C-alpha cells in the first residue's frame, strides 16, 4: 500500500518535472526567431483557417437551438426580444469559445499529437536534432503561436455566425422582428462580453497546442503509442478547457 502510494507520488512528481521542463524550454525557444518565424504562417493556415468550417458548423446550430430554446423558455413570462439578449450573451461569453474550443481540441490537439508522435517514432525528430534544429523552436513554438493567434479569430467568426443564425432563426421561425432581436442583443451588451470570449479562446489555443505538442513529443512505443498520445491529448485538452473556462469566470466576471 505504502509502496504503491509512494510509486504513484513519484510518477506524478516526475510527470510534473517533465511538464515544467517542457514549458520552460519552450519559453526559451521563443528566442530562436529565425527558426520559427517562417513556419508559423503555415501553421496558422492548418490550425486556424482549416478549422473555420467545423467552427462555423457548430456556431450555426448553436445559434438555431439557443434562439428556439430561449423562445420556449420566455414565452408568456418574459418579453420575446430577450431572445436576442440570451443568444448574444450566451454565444459571446460561453458557447462560442467553449464549443469551438472543444471541437478544436479534437481537431487541432489530435492532429498535433499524432503528427509529432509519428515524427518521434520514425526518428524524424532525432533527425531534426542532428541537423542542429531545436525541435521546440521548429515544431512547438510555431504551433503554439499559430493557435494563440488563430483561436481568437476563429472564435470571433463563430460568435458572429452564431448570432446571425440565432437572428435568422428568430425572424423566420419565431414571432420576432429584426429590430426587436437587435434591441435584445444590445440590452445588456458590454464590450467586456467580446474580450472575455477572446481571452478565453486565446488561452484555449495555447493550452490545446501545448498539450498536443507535449503528448506528441513524449510518444513511446510505435503506432500504439501514437494512438495513446492522441487520445490523451484530446482528453487532457477538453478537461483543460473546462477548467480554464471556470478559472476565467472566477477571475474576470
Amino acid at each position, binding site marked *: 500500500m505504502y509502496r504503491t502510494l509512494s510509486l504513484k507520488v513519484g510518477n506524478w512528481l516526475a510527470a510534473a518535472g517533465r511538464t515544467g521542463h517542457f514549458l520552460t524550454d519552450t519559453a526559451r525557444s521563443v528566442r530562436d526567431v529565425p527558426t520559427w518565424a517562417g513556419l508559423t504562417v503555415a501553421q496558422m493556415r492548418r490550425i486556424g483557417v482549416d478549422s473555420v468550417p467545423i467552427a462555423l458548423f457548430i456556431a450555426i446550430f448553436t445559434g438555431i437551438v439557443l434562439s428556439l430554446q430561449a423562445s420556449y423558455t420566455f414565452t408568456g413570462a418574459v418579453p420575446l426580444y430577450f431572445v436576442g439578449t440570451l443568444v448574444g450573451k450566451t454565444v459571446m461569453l460561453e458557447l462560442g469559445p467553449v464549443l469551438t474550443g472543444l471541437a478544436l481540441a479534437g481537431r487541432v490537439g489530435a492532429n498535433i499529437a499524432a503528427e509529432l508522435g509519428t*515524427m518521434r517514432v*520514425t*526518428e*524524424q525528430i*532525432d*533527425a*531534426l*536534432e*542532428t*541537423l*542542429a*534544429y*531545436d525541435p521546440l523552436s521548429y515544431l512547438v513554438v510555431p504551433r503554439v503561436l499559430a493557435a494563440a493567434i488563430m483561436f481568437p479569430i476563429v472564435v470571433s467568426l463563430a460568435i458572429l455566425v452564431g448570432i446571425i443564425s440565432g437572428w435568422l432563426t428568430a425572424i423566420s421561425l419565431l414571432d420576432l422582428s429584426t429590430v426587436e432581436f437587435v434591441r435584445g442583443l444590445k440590452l445588456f451588451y458590454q464590450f467586456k462580453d467580446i474580450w472575455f470570449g477572446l481571452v478565453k479562446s486565446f488561452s484555449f489555443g495555447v493550452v490545446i497546442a501545448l498539450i498536443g505538442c507535449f503528448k506528441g513529443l513524449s510518444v513511446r512505443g510505435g503506432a500504439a503509442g501514437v494512438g495513446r498520445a492522441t487520445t490523451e491529448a484530446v482528453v487532457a485538452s477538453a478537461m483543460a478547457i473546462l477548467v480554464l473556462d471556470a478559472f476565467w469566470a472566477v477571475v474576470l466576471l
Partner: protein
Amino acid sequence: MIEFKEVYKSFGDRQVLRGFSLSVQDGETVVILGYSGSGKSVALKHVVGLLEPDAGEVIVDGEVVHQLDREGLTRLRAKIGFVFQFAALLDSMTVRENLELGLKRRGLSRAEIDERIKEALELVDLEDVEDRYPAELSGGMRKRVGIARAIALRPRYILYDEPTTGLDPVTSAVIDRLIVRAREKLNVTGLVVTHDLRSAYTVADRIALLYQGRIRQVGSVESIRNSHDPVVRQFIEGRPEALADVEQAAGGVR
C-alpha cells in the same frame, strides 16, 4: 576523434551498455558489429547527444558530449552527419527540402545550397528525385537520400545506423559503395553500426564486436575474420549455438 569511455546505459532495469569503450581515429571507418538489440544504435546516439550515458562519457574532438550546453551541442552536431536506419526523412518535405534543411541552418547562400544538393545527389546516383516526397521513393532510394542529406553538410564525421538493413543484396552493395565513396571523396571519419557482415567487411578499416554491452574484440577486418574468440567466431559464422546469449541480446534495446 570519437572516444567512448566506459559508457553505461540502461532503459528501466535493462542494461544495454555496460562499460562500452571504443576510439575512432580521424579518417578511418569503424564498424560496430553486434546482434540485433545489442545496443549498437544506442551507442551511436550518444555521439550526437540524442542519449546521455548513465555513467562514463563520449568525447568528440576533446569535448564531452553530455556536458555540452545547447549551443555547444548545436556546434558539435554541425560537424556530424547522421544516417538513420530508416532514413528518417521528413515526410512532409520533398527530397530537395530535406537536403536544404541542414544547409539553411548553416547559413549558406542559395547558390551554395543548390550546388551542395546537386553534388550530394550525384554522389548517391540520384539526380532526378529532387521534387519527390519520401513516400514516393523505394527503401533503398530513401537510404541514399539519407546519405545525401548527411554528405551535403560536408561533415567531419558520418554516423551510419544500420545502413543496409532491410535491403536486397544488390542495393546493400550500392549503399556500401556509397559509404566507401563518401570516405574517399570527402575524407570523412565514419562510424557504422550493422549486423551485416558483408557490409562490414566492405566498408570497415576496423571492426568492433559489441557483445553484452561492451566491446568483445576490435581490430582490422582480417583480425576479426581470423579471430579465435568463440563469441566472435559464433557471430561471423552465424552459428545458432549459445542461443541463450543470442536471445538475451535480441531482447535488448535497439
